[in-house]
């Protein structure tokens, strides 16, 4: 699939996502945040990093980038869109996904391996996964604590929008939520980094579950 990797000033994981997309048989293309999304792009990934140096709030400035107008349009059109880490923060700041990402309850940047469990929500990125599957995956963020008010969370649960939960309380996230999707299921935000867990060399546990998130696009 032709997947656009959106590059903001300060994106750090664009090259990593590009590498894994190539490795999983896709045709990735970088899309600079000031440019339009090329017509032939079939899915988008907003990679992690420190867009605009995380000034103001993580993702706050990038969510006003010129490209976000197009991203919003594509989201409504049903294009598969995945935001990873800072990409998730940008999507949340831009209102494409419910909730916000706050400073970790440790008040520190935290980089470590953990596991997330798939909750069965249907998205274009989770087709090969089965409800209850655990995915070994690293997190690396300072503002990764998912927060939404209890009504919103209940709503999300009813609509199958909570896609992944941590198997442990790693940062104080509400309901240990690690990843959520929009109501239509085509836009997914994920705080941990699947692209860092998708190869034998980089994943000391089992790289196949995280890899299936990228392979999933080919199964559509």
């Amino acid at each position, binding site marked *: 699939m032709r997947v656009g990797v959106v590059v903001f000033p*300060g994106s*750090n994981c664009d090259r*990593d996502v590009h590498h894994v997309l190539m490795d999983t048989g896709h045709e990735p293309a970088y899309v600079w945040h000031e440019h339009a999304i090329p017509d032939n792009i079939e899915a988008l990934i907003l990679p992690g990093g420190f867009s605009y*140096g995380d000034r103001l709030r993580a993702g706050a400035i990038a969510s006003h980038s010129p490209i976000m107008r197009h991203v919003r349009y594509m989201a409504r059109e049903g294009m598969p869109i995945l935001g990873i880490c800072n990409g998730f923060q940008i999507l949340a700041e831009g209102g494409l996904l419910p909730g916000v990402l706050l400073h970790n309850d440790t008040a520190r*940047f935290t980089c470590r391996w953990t596991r997330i469990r798939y909750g069965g929500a249907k998205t274009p990125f989770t087709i090969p996964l089965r409800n209850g599957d655990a995915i070994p995956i690293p997190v690396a963020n300072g503002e990764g604590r998912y927060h939404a008010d209890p009504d919103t969370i209940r709503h999300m649960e009813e609509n199958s929008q909570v896609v992944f939960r941590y198997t442990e309380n790693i940062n104080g996230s509400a309901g240990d939520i690690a990843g959520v999707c929009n109501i239509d299921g085509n836009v997914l935000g994920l705080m941990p980094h699947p692209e860092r867990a998708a190869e034998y060399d980089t994943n000391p546990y089992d790289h196949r579950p995280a890899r299936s998130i990228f392979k999933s696009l080919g199964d559509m």
Partner: protein
Amino acid sequence: MLDSEMSHLRQSLGREPTETETAIISAEWSEHCSYKSSREHLRILPRDAPYVISDKGLDSGVIDVGGGYVVTAHIESHNHPSAVEPYGGAATGVGGIIRDIMSAGTRPICILDGLRFGDIEADRHAAWLLRGAVRGISDYGNCLGIPTIGGETGFDPSYSKYTLVDVAAVGFGIRERLIHNTAGPGDHIVLLGGPTGYDGVGGAQFASERMDEEDRSAVQIPDPFMEKMVMEAILKLRPYIKALKDLGGGGLACAASETADALGVGIAIDTDAVHTRDNNMTPPQIMASESQERMLAIVDDTGLAHIREVCGRFRVPHSIIGVVNDTGTLTVRHHGTVVAELPASLAAHAPPLRWPSKPPTPGEDHTTIPDQNDYTHTLERMLGGADCASRNWIYSQYDHEVGIRTVSRPGQDASVLRLDNGKYLAVSMCGSPRHCHLNPYHGTMGCFEEACRNVRCAGATPVAMLDHLQFGSPEDPQIFWSFLQSVRALADYSKHTGIPCIGGKVSLYNETDTGPIKPSPVILVLGLADQNFRRRPIRDGDALYIIGVTKNETGGSSYHHHTGTGGGTCPRVDMVSSTSNGVAASSLAGLGTIHDCSRGGLAVAASRMCITSDMGCTIDLDAIPGDVPHPGVALFAESHSRYLVSIPYNHTKEAAHTLGEAGVPHARIGTYGGASIRFEAGATPVCNVMVDKAHNTWSESLERMIHHG
């Protein structure tokens, strides 16, 4: 500047230097920039190997790693600034080293940091410095998207009110895309990056003196986002840049004069063209400012057009501040008037200083670990002590995964990155000031060997070394003697093993009103492996082997430190068995899990293996090869060239065969199983620690010390 230097300058110019010239020379001839006390002595370090690429004007060491790829590496420190303002000092330390890697035209792929503080268990100021430095490195490195994959942290009262922040970085790139540093008349001098401000004016001189007062204005202000934009712009511009230089210590003054000298050209700079934070800056301030995130590029007309386009896209401020000519002179103009006109070779070569050296009164004696029959409490204390406790609190704040090259993570002996040519790069950074204090020659060689050992543990072969030599004032003959001993040890080990020194740094005058630091060389070793040797889980019944000889040399050990014992003998590296033991250990990387035996000795090393695998082990101290008068020495001596290897129970024959063929001293000393780490002598337990208890004290104590003291 010294009086003798001022008169040398006057004599060379044949006139009084101008104010701007004095500012340029003061920065360039500072110890920090000129190596005037050390340069001559560093010549004995072997620098050549068939794969070493040494081009003029390179800010980093470069090796060819095959398949058309190169690895670059550099090491630096930011000690004085970090001691005053740990956050900014450590952050800008990272920034500087990254620009050195970029200036070769390679992309930085990892950062390592070596940190030293006062006694964290008692000294609250040390805890404050540690928190600040770690946060500085974390905020800066994470924002750049470069993984901080390793390093080391040590504590000693000789660093009280002070800190050592050593930062190393490694880059990776295509050999053909290296920036080769050439320049010709008519080329443009472009300054790109953040605006030049008052911060850091005089920083190089500040770093070249004993630290008596807190001069905060000499500390630079970090802006990692600007650095990231500069980095991406530079990497895009790589094919169009003829020469590239980082603006570090001594700012524009040093970058311009060193570039002109190295490339054999003249450079004319117009200070009015420099983009500044303040319009009222004077030429001496502009030349000596150490504002961060700036680089000097030399380009031709075509290159200039590309710079404008790419810097525009990345919003990187830049100005065309001068031209290259063939005069061999650094000329500075301000409002149309020449304010400095210095021969570049004069500016770039400070007159060397010669200091007397004198051996100190012998520090070594025959003190050793006392014999006792219960070492359990000692081992528990050591596992939870500042020397040996887990550094997880530190490295979990560093993104060590970004870039998806990280194969072996911080907390292992060596960190390992995959390269694009199918090979794996292992890196390790080591220092051991207590050993170096006791005997700078053997202590320094030990640091070099330990870094090599760590690389061997990952199944890699050491291929290059970088040294960072940190001492007090060279004007003290005993300190200068220690420095010379250190350099000699590095040269000797390098010659013997054929591992070249591809870069390094000297930092002198590391002292406060409480005195000088202990001699603190920090050694970085790079190794290459053809394979990713993953750590194997250890199972019940697996065997534990030791390779190497344990000797009664316990001076400077963690045990002595814990028990407040001075003296003793510094461990000696036996150069012959160093290589053979290392090669033998490395050859088992595909079979088992290898762990270096160093700080805390066998007892701590074996405990670490048990903790990591959540499995007990029973170890027979009588089986250990060597000269061990009693179990205490076997447990805690820090003899070099030793490795612990866990071998799956069904592969012990293969392992024994391999080690027998290699002809290295070795023994099977233990069997995994049970819930405790148990050391026996003559079938009697002399030390017995529960794995879960060891795990808790080892993993949680550093955080407790940092927060609660």
